[in-house]
């Protein structure tokens, strides 16, 4: 039996990778994938605590997150496709029309 702490550390590492990816990468698809990594890091935390505490509520939450993530992936990818059609690029640095 792997102790819960290991899962949690893995989850934290995944989450940090996701954060760094979101904050630093320029390609919108990579950013998007990093968000997915963060969501899954959160899912891992949920199931870890669910199993450690014997509470099914955590697993229910994970199913919910997966459903939302699927919807979010559909919308997010559609936005990226629209962005690409508009600018011929998915580099997030070329989308700064809101600058002051």
């Amino acid at each position, binding site marked *: 039996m792997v102790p819960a702490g290991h899962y949690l550390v893995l989850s934290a590492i995944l989450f940090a990778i996701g954060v760094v990816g979101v904050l*630093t990468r320029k390609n919108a698809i990579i950013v998007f994938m990093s968000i997915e990594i963060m969501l899954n890091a959160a899912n891992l935390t949920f199931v870890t605590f669910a199993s450690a505490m014997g509470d099914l509520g955590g697993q229910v939450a994970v199913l919910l997150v997966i459903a939302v993530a699927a919807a979010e992936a559909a919308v997010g990818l559609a936005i990226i496709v629209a962005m690409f059609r508009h600018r011929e690029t998915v580099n997030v640095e070329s*989308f*700064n029309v*809101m*600058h*002051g």
Partner: protein
Amino acid sequence: MADLLWLVPALPLAGVALNGFFGRRLGKRAVAWIGPGVVGLAFGVSVAAFAALTRLPPDARALHQTLYTWIAAGDFRAPVALLVDPLSVTLMLVVTGVGFLIHLYSVGYMHDEDRRGFARYFTYLNLFTFAMLLLVMADNFLLLFVGWEGVGLCSYLLIGFWFSDMANAAAGKKAFIVNRIGDFGFLIGIFLIFGSFGSVTFADVLPAAASTLTLGGPLAFWTCLFLFVGATGKSAQIPLYVWLPDAMAGPTPVSALIHAATMVTAGVYMIARAHALYVLAPGALAIVASIGAATALYAATIGLVQTDIKKVLAYSTISQLGYMFLAVGVAAFGAGIFHLVTHAFFKALLFLGAGSVIHALHGEQDMRRMGGLRRHLPVTYWTMLAATLAIAGIPPLAGFFSKDAILGAAWNAGHPGLWAVGWVTAGLTALYMFRLFFLTFHGEFRGPAEARHGLHESPPSMAVPLVVLAVLATVGGWIGVPAVVGDALGGLPDAFEGWLAPVFADVARGTPAHAAPAAEVGLMIASIAVATVGILMAWVLYARDPELRERLARRFHAAYQILLHKYWVDEIYEFLVVRPYDALSTFAWRVIDDGLIDGLGVRGAGALVRFGSGVASRWETGYVQNYLVVFFLGVLAVLAYLVIG
């Protein structure tokens, strides 16, 4: 009667409303009836008030009507209330009586104005009459000040009546601004009165003056001096007289009404009204008398060489006002008011006569292009002769008695110096007035030939007021025949002095009213002599031997130039007052207003916001990832707080 006092100022005010709002549509005929008509009615009510006063015992001669409480703040009360006593009814009769004649005269004089200008003219003239009546009928200093400002406003409006000429507009502004300087002093005087007495009502202030202020104390002195500053502005005394000669830019009847007969005498009335304060301030009285005497002599010398007929009369007015201040300055308030009344008669007549001349010559005012008008304007000639003799002080015309009363009072009060100045001025007055008279009416016509054919006597509406005023200027002095003459004529009383006696009763006590009869007769003979000499000199210089005056002008070139340029006082004021003030205003405009307030303040605030938002907007890069970094750091900070804190 007291209930009807409000009619006196209300009637001219009704004229203002009618002429002002409907005058253009009513047409010139209706305006010509309304304008003089309301003043004539006001004169009728004033006569009724006068008659009502005469029926009262002398000590109780006062009518009072409170219309409403204008200001009530704490203990302070400023009612709109009218007071009619022998002093104010005298002024009311002058204002409405002489005013009515001048209104009537204006109908003829302003005949060439279009409907619009005609209605505007009579609106202003009625408004002036209203304000002047408010001034003399007010029962407190504050309401008096309202009238005081009102007449100043009308003076401004009427000087600049033909405002399309910039010079007229500038003259109006000058009059208004110089008057404002005086008014500022007057206001301070009213504040001081309120500070001392806690009230501005005559009935509260004047009887309590002796018990509240100390005789010769600084408070009495400064109060009186500041009030007098107001009087120097309104009544054109040194140093604020400079506006009056320029005020001749207005229509001539305006000069007669406002700048000779009534408004400019407001200062004399005010001092006479506040005499209870002035007798407590001998220092201030001495200043009043000295300024009056100095102004009388000074203006008379300038009047000697002016060539514009109205300018001569303007300086003459300043000089005669100086006499009035000399009178009140030696505490001869009755004599000052007496001269005010007779002066109103003969000076209004002189101005109206000059207006008749100007009218006949189609606007010509330069006496060098007049002459020989005696044959063409007989009515004007004879009435002007009466007025000129009156102002010169030839008995038995009006000016003799009032001027003699003033000179006698100066002598009796122990001021032979002031008397001497007044005496010399009397000679100068005769000289410059007969200079005007001879230059205008005698000799040969010196104007262009074509102007000669247009010469005509004025229409009846102008001639009748001239005749009435000529009668008044002739017999008007008989109401104040001095005792020494009256006794010789079989006990003729000094009616005027007796009439005003209740008002000035507190002054008369303890001062010798008259010198020995011998001295008085001597003073009288001296006045007549100096006036005769003045007339003879004028005759020699301006009627008999024109060569001589050319030689004199060359001989005394420097003196002549000084007088011709009016002592360069306008230029000195320009240099000492107007320019520095202009520079200060320009500084305030360019540096303080444009630089500090607009530049640093308004535009500075804008620039600061702009700069600040410029800096702040750098944060808004538009890169979502930058926002996320901040968001992430924020989350970390919150977490750190939750974990550590």
